[in-house]
């Protein structure tokens, strides 16, 4: 049965290929960039090698008995063996030993990674919404969406809850996922150890646009992070300082529409302009690289596409198509881009 050897070779080869290079896999669990990710990865590798060992033993035995004991013509009937107590005991105990080898580091890792956070950890509240992420930094009062900024090498605690259905926050390179459940506050803690942008997305099925609930974590050196916080704390430019197009956009943003639920300010907050809580806070929208649950780039074209028909970009989106005219869209894009 050479196909099985081939399969093993294929599997091992593919595994090496994916683990050896840190390649173009921005959401990989095999390329950790934080302590939690490393802890899990270390356990996973132990499990992987043990599993590979058992796999090779069992499959080789299967292939061996298939070849060695295949029926040949003219054989006398085989002896009627019914069992062997010592064998039964040994192949019961062998897995016990393997499981103990796994259990000890497992429990240690569980206890280590779920310890109460130490002092000095950065706390961020994460709120899951259908289908976007809200982040609140209690230390600085910053509120943003989808793009989580963190300083490198400082422990982080994410305190997570949901505004509607159950979601799951998952940025694989930084660590495992944690469900985001209404009525509960779940915590996950880790310390990012590399500067960079790490992709993630919701991992618990949460309805029609579950696939469109992306996120990204931007890990920065502490100075850049501090500068980002300071930027986010700044009040937006006063309306008078806006260009003509942006000012028109501001008017469109404020316009009370029919039905009223089509009005921007009911759902969105912009500091000094509106205080809606249903949708993402737009005060510093221009400082984000993506919009709509990390699905499209935050460019003039991207914004226009989104405003033209949100439901087409994100099926089931709670932001309806409110029938904006093209001039209104252009004005709104200019205004939203001014919010930096």
């Amino acid at each position: 049965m050479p196909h099985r050897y081939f399969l093993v070779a294929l599997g091992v080869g593919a595994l090496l290929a994916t683990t050896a290079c840190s390649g173009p896999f921005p959401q990989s669990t095999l390329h950790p960039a934080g302590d939690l990710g490393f802890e899990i990865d270390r356990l996973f590798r132990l499990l992987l090698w043990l599993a590979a060992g058992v796999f090779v033993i069992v499959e080789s035995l299967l292939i061996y008995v298939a070849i060695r004991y295949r029926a040949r013509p003219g054989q006398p009937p085989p002896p009627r063996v019914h069992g062997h107590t010592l064998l039964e005991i040994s192949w019961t105990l062998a897995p016990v030993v393997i499981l103990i080898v796994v259990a000890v580091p497992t429990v240690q890792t569980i206890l280590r990674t779920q310890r109460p956070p130490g002092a000095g950890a950065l706390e961020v509240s994460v709120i899951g919404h259908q289908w976007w992420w809200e982040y609140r930094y209690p230390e600085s009062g910053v509120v943003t969406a989808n793009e989580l900024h963190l300083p490198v090498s400082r422990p982080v605690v994410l305190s997570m809850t949901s505004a509607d259905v159950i979601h799951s926050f998952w940025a694989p390179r930084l660590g495992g996922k944690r469900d985001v459940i209404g009525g509960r506050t779940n915590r996950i803690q880790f310390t990012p150890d590399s500067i960079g942008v790490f992709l993630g997305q919701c991992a618990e099925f949460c309805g029609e646009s579950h696939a469109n609930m992306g996120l990204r974590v931007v890990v920065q050196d502490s100075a850049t992070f501090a500068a980002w916080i300071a930027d986010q704390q700044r009040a937006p430019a006063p309306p008078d300082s806006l260009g003509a197009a942006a000012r028109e956009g501001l008017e469109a943003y404020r316009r009370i529409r029919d039905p009223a639920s089509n009005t921007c300010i009911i759902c969105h907050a912009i500091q000094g302009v509106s205080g809606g809580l249903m949708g993402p806070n737009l005060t510093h929208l221009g400082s984000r690289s993506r919009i709509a649950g990390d699905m499209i780039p935050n460019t003039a074209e991207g914004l226009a596409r989104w405003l033209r028909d949100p439901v087409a970009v994100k099926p089931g989106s709670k932001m309806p198509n409110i029938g904006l005219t093209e001039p209104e869209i252009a004005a709104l894009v200019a205004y939203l881009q001014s919010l930096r």
Partner: protein
Amino acid sequence: MATATQLSAPHDSGRSGLWSWITTTDHKRIGILYGVSAFVFFLIGGLEALFIRLQLARPDNTLVSAETFNQLFTMHGTTMVFLAIMPLSAAFFNYIVPLQIGARDVAFPRLNAFSYWVFLLGGLFLNASFLVGAAPNGGWFGYVNLTSRQYSPGLNIDFWVLGLLVLGIASLAAGFNFIVTIINLRAPGMRMMRLPVFTWMTLITQIIVVTAFPVITVGLVFLMFDRFFGTTFYSLAAGGDLLLWQHLFWLFGHPEVYILILPAMGIVSEVLPTFSRKPLFGYAVVVYSGALIGFMGWGVWAHHMFAVGLGPIADSVFGATTMLIAIPTGVKIFNWLATMWGGQVRFTTAMLFAMGFIAMFVIGGLSGVMHSNPPADLQQTDTYFVVAHLHYVLFGGAIQGLFAGIYYWFPKMTGRLLNEKLGKVHFWVTFLGMNLAFFPMHFIGLLGMPRRIYTYRPELGVETMNLVSTIGAHIIAVALLVFIYNVWRSWRRGEVAGNDPWEGATLEWTIPSPPPDYNFTVIPEVVSRLPRWSVTQMKAIPDVPPEPIHVPGGSYWPVVAALGIIGMATGAVAHALWIVLLSGAVLIFSIYRWAFEPFEG
């Protein structure tokens, strides 16, 4: 009509035609009905899988909409679990168990017919949701509060809740029926530790069924009350807890996994000895480990909830109990290998599928041990790694085991052998397709692709592997076409099997293929575990019944009762109280008539 007593001819009683199938209470006919219906549902579930795979063949694909995709994966999971694998196993419970224990039928033949019709109508009810464009879309696990009326106001979840409640009735009725049958209808001398392993695994499975289904029924009734009558079991605003559903669902859901796999393990435990010409190695250990798996299956449910945040103690304990299940499972695998060791292995198609079961189930078992590990599971849960795992267990395991059973017992059921050459093509093409479809999913998951997403970003770098997986799924479909052709051809023109084409050891091989209505001309007296192999020969079974045998003639009340139940579900979905009440009256009336139906005509 009703139940007429009749003197059966040695072979077919001559009853035929649609009406005879609708009113049949013969366990063999019901077995065939289960098998054919479940296979059709299996094809529907497979078709859903192909659409899922086509959609995911490349990133940002737009073949189906998000909503359609969510319906497809929900129905794929629900169909494969409740309408394909469980009833395919039931086909063998029905057909084979009475033959293996030397009985003339199951304990409650009309209840058996009732189970089948409730299952069939329940399955049609669930799939009818497609016709009104409202197929269930909340996942086969139906997590609240996504499935609460607030977030899923449509009929979709109503169909799902009511459909599962109806199917639960079918499973429970069948469960009690088989427990009573196996315990009470054994032929003289068929002690418990002489039961064939397939019958043992059936008994254990049915004990799990009658203990696990009430749990999900409670969960579903809560959800139904929340959705229909505005109760607040799962309402956060009223102080409900969303985790209540998850605990109830997985307290059922994990034992359900063993409901799906133990029958296949039982089949493999019959096929391997026959085609190794050696008794099963460690019979008692295999039986005990099956019972232990069934029992331990109750203590592991929270491993489906490691990401929920149950705390370090719960995580550690449930991780440990889950790992422990690997021990009895491993013991079974080593006993199967030891059965082949020193034997004379004949590579029939049934044997190939049984060996394929071992080869593939090991992969699923090992990846299962990986996510029994709570920290590792935090990366793996809800990703394609778990999809790979469960398909190695349920396709590589359960489905391959069931195919082994089909090739093994088809001659008993039809009197004709399936074509072996086509069978081997079926096996090898399946083997190739399955590994292409499911092996890459391990990497797809580890590289960060979650489950249940209708589209993914090209940046993830999992495009090629997804395409390979899609191709593999279609290769499995080709293998199934070969199988269907084989069945179609062999049923009519296959080689005639005779009583015992395989030199099997158990009682079903002592009687003609297909067996006469009454199965055994005289109830055999069993003197050993392997009646046909042991030195102490059992008394020969005569070809012609020495005295007339009474065979019940069938009843239509089970079908009417089943129609009453499905009418109630339909009325509920349609929010038409009068249909519910009318159907309820039909149900009560038919049970009354059924209860007073004269047994002797």
